[in-house]
């Protein structure tokens, strides 16, 4: 059975296409677009870490190394689909149209960071592990009941597969044939716990068997494999054939969050060597060079534009009006209860009195 879940690649580490089936779909413009998006999010990620170190941002969850998994999968979505991210999936959210300044606001402890541009169906990041999987199953089921043809994608890590919600979400979705793609990013660690200590099964993809749904283990650093397999799974969902479990095998180079030290639990040499060998951006660069569609000037421009866009986002985040104390009270119920009304009134009088 395990042999059924070998890792799928379309492009290998050296940037060579190894699966001809998809060749005709890989245009120059698609390739460049993917590269541009990955540069944007990588630059964003590095900037966020540096802002955190300067005290201009709170604790932040970096994703460097997982760009292909997030950008590739989110690029396969259609405008009216749903995206359920975790705290690490800002690259997916940004790819799907979340606003950069708002992602930064989220990490600065601002509730406004949970709000997305109008029309975008991006749920606030799930902080408790795996709780978003049943939500996605449910939201997708509602789309199916309304016959819209829209689907949902839900992101989660390898650690999340240990929680009950993972199993419950997959089971419900498969029983009700919800149009949802369960997108796992297997970055091999849940904070400090390596995958060998998380589970005894060799792959995450094989867990699909228990729920009677298709599962694929794909190279999560191969943006083409991620993009096309997600697209297929979404297509299948739209046609009423139910959910798919995708395991994107990837690697995160840095800390779990800016609050921890990866040196305590992860071999840094291994991360460094992966950066030189399997890195998703480097791989696409190699592919483009092999294909003769790489130009240094273009790449420099892409980097420069990403930096400008991010500088703009940082400026916008920092110019955002200060938090409004009313927001503490005003969104708990449609109509505030008397308890909240009284507490608010008393507190507002007090801070007004104190001139705060």
């Amino acid at each position: 059975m395990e042999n059924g879940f070998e890792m799928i690649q379309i492009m290998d580490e050296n940037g060579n296409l190894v699966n001809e089936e998809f060749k005709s779909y890989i245009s120059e413009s698609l390739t460049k677009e993917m590269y541009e998006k990955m540069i944007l999010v990588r630059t964003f990620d590095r900037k966020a870490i540096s802002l955190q170190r300067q005290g201009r941002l709170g604790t932040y969850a970096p994703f460097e190394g997982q760009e292909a998994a997030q950008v590739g999968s989110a690029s396969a979505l259609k405008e009216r689909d749903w995206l359920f991210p975790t705290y690490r999936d800002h690259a997916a959210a940004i790819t799907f149209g979340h606003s950069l300044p708002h992602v930064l606001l989220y990490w600065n402890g601002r509730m406004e960071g949970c709000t997305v541009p109008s029309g975008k169906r991006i749920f606030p990041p799930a902080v408790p592990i795996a709780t978003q999987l049943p939500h996605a199953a449910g939201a997708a089921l509602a789309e199916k009941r309304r016959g819209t043809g829209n689907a949902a994608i839900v992101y989660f890590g390898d650690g999340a597969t240990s929680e009950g919600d993972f199993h419950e979400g997959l089971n419900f979705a498969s029983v009700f044939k919800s149009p949802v793609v369960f997108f796992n990013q297997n970055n091999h660690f849940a904070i400090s716990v390596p995958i060998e200590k998380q589970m005894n099964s060799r792959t995450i993809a094989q867990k699909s068997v228990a729920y009677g749904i298709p599962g694929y283990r794909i190279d999560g650093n191969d943006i083409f494999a991620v993009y096309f397999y997600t697209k297929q799974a979404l297509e299948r969902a739209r046609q009423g054939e139910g959910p798919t479990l995708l395991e994107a095998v990837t690697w995160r180079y840095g800390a779990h969050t800016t609050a921890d030290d990866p040196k305590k639990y992860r071999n840094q040499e291994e991360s460094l060597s992966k950066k030189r060998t399997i890195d998703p951006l480097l791989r696409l660069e190699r592919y483009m060079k092999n294909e003769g569609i790489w130009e240094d000037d273009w790449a420099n421009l892409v980097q420069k534009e990403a930096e400008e866009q991010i500088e703009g986002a940082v400026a916008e985040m920092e110019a955002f009006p200060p938090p409004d104390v009313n927001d503490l009270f005003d969104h708990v119920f449609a109509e505030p209860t008397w308890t909240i009304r009284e507490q608010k009134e008393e507190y507002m009088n007090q801070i007004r009195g104190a001139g705060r």
Partner: protein
Amino acid sequence: MEMRVKTNKLTMVQAVTDGLRTMLQKKEEVVLLGEDIGSNGGVFRATEGLMEEFGEERVMDTPLSEAGLMGTAIGMAINGMIPVAEIQFLGFIYPAYEQIATHATRIRMRTMGKYTVPMVIRAPYGAGIRAPEIHSDSAEALFTHMPGMKVVCPSTPYDAKGLLIASIEDPDPVLFLEPLRLYRAGKEEVPEGEYRVEIGKAARRREGSDVTLIAWGAMAAQASKAAEKLEQTGVSCEVIDLRTLYPLDKETIAESVQKTGRAVIVQEAHATGGLANDVMGVINDTSFLYLRAPITRVSGFDVPVPFFSLEEHYLPDTERIIQAVEKVIHY
């Protein structure tokens, strides 16, 4: 002959480690389990070095599943072991709630004492450290409402170690809440080796005659700060740190309120359904005729603990405590 006990200056989180180490050394049955508690030493370093010292069989990194972790701990406890299970943040205990509420707390009663659950659940909790959302919940009332389990909450390094040892030795399940804001707030002399702080006993942190301030966890420290400021304006506050939230120390509360005639209860948790209401009940039952003013509560609001940009507004500060005290003094 005077016995000299060697002490070390420790933070609260170091005192917790020290207490865990002491009990791991003392009893073979004690095992620690939790997420990231092994090679990482816990996200707050509370179990730092313990896996290296006692091995992976005694200090176990578990898969990421609070329900699994809690259920397994219960199973170990009914079968002769003494598990100390770490929940990474109290806000992530909800998946384990079923195991705690429907099993850990009732096994003794359901088996008429044949099976018991002598386990400890350690959970860092509370706001004030600018953590991301959900990491700052104060959900103690969900557990004090649950017969069959004791709930303990130290506010000093000395108490943390002494109460932890007492909790590990307690024959019933104990939820041991560690206030995040106090983990590294200061150091205190902590004796080496074994000592106990009795579960069910509050501490008088400060003597006073005009009003009793009752608090626990990070709010105990906040109440003491307010008391210091009030002292300068001539108001004498007695500060009671509950230390054990279930069962409450009825006597200490009553004795103090009967002396001062006034009570202000300070809690970080939401007002409605919070433990402050139970403390109020105790005062009402024991000391009604001594009161010179209505009992007053200062609480977090009835809103989810907010994102950190609004955290300072959620948390009771000295200003809010002082206002409440002035209200009862001038009633």
